């Protein structure tokens, strides 16, 4: 079993563009998807992100922070899942019903395990 970090990216205003019944349906599908993963014990953690992200960079020896441009792109949240392989993790990501409703991308990152001590 390996752990994978799934980062869900979408656009800031897409949620508000969904009509109410579509939004309700979106939430229902999302809940069912997560329920299945919880039951299968595949999710270690999953959380939505709040607004107000900041980005920290270092330029010319100076560390600065600036607001993350949230109208263009937002990280909606993350999933920390356990899977046997990257293929399984990708399959879990592909199953996410978010793709049916709003333009999104999901990044699937394998998490490097702590090397077993000799």
């Amino acid at each position: 079993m390996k752990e994978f970090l799934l980062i869900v990216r979408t656009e800031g205003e897409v949620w508000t563009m969904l009509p109410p019944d579509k939004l309700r349906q979106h939430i229902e599908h999302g809940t069912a998807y997560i329920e299945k993963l919880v039951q299968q014990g595949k999710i270690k953690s999953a959380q939505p992100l709040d607004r107000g992200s900041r980005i920290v960079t270092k330029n010319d020896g100076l560390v600065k922070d600036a607001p993350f441009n949230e109208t263009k792109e937002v990280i909606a949240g993350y999933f920390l899942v356990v899977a046997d392989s990257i293929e399984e993790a990708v399959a879990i990501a592909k199953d996410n019903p978010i793709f049916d409703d709003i333009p999104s991308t999901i990044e699937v990152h394998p998490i490097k395990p702590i090397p077993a001590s000799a």
Partner: protein
Amino acid sequence: MATESSYDNVPRLVDHLFRHETGKLVAVLTRIFGPHHLELAEDVVQDTLLEAINVWNYKGIPEHPIPWLYKVAKNKALNIVNREKYKREYATAAAHLLKSEWTANAALETLFSESEIRDDQLRMMFTCCHPAISGDSQVALTLKTLCGFSLSEIARAFLTTEENINKRLVRARQKIREEKISFEVPQPEHLEDRLDAVLQTIYLLFNEGYNASTGPYLIRYELCAEAIRLTEIISVSSSIVDKSKVFACLALMYLNASRFSARQNAQGEIVTMAEQDRSQWDKLLMAKGFAYLDQAATNKNISVYHILAAISAYHCSAANFASTDWNSILLLYDKLSELDRSPLVALNRAIALSKVSGPETAIAELEKLKDLSPLKSYHLYYSTLGEFYMQAGRFTEAKNALTTAIALSQLPAEQELLRKRLEICNQNGA
């Protein structure tokens, strides 16, 4: 709508009907909060029941009271793990999922599902019966957390004070915290030993209910029923592969329980096996016992439970006392003495021996044991000895033994039975 009568019914309904729900909810909440917060889990369940009493008194009992209780308990659990102040204390995997908007509801549904609740009760058994906790405390904790018994009920079942039981519970919870006892089914390499400890506690629970002859009948019966219920939870678990011992223990309990109601007459007096009305033996329980005995035979390892169940099966299958197959029972006791060298086994073996080889042989066997504790202060040792002397026609010696037995017995029904035997000795010139 609330009716007059619901004022009387609600506390009783809550107290009694929800005993098992209490045990289930404590198990789930302990999984969420962690075993070091066992008392919090118990308190939350208590709060849930109080809320039920208050609301139901006012609005009447809902159509589906159990889902109602679960909903209240779920909300309380969610509030507690998300209380800012304590967020870090509930670091269990279950609590983690309850802290996220995305997973909280899904996790609640899963955690409170029937199969998870069953597994949590099993985990709770391993936690309650951890070897770091003393035997007395294990039993009290099992009754309190898994069976939903109140302090006063546990105290009555064990003929002691509530204060005493509370002390045992406090010590047990303290041990769980100090020793960081986990809430899980043990790893395969420890499973057999830990399962033995669980079965031992459950069997003790059963025997408390089965052997005590004072105290309210209902509580005694419920102790036995609870022991069976807990063992059946183990018997359906997929985490335990070799269940031979579990089935044997169930067979033993069912076979013994089938004779439960024939062991006492309407006046509350004890009826010996020889005099029991066998038509009163519960055929359904007996059939279950035999079915479990078949399932127990899948393994070559013979446990104490296998032997005891087989002995019980010989008694159950005898049409009457006279046709009991004592030769086979004696052979089983011989086997049992190899596994368990306790004087109590030797005492029971002597009874079978008396049937096979006559009372004098059995008396000689018992006399050999007379200085062993706990026999030398055990009323059943002297009552058995007295019985053998009577059978041998040695009424003066019988009278002495029976007198000692009466002095050592603490149970009125038993003393009464012994006095009747003593009277027969007197009539025979002792």
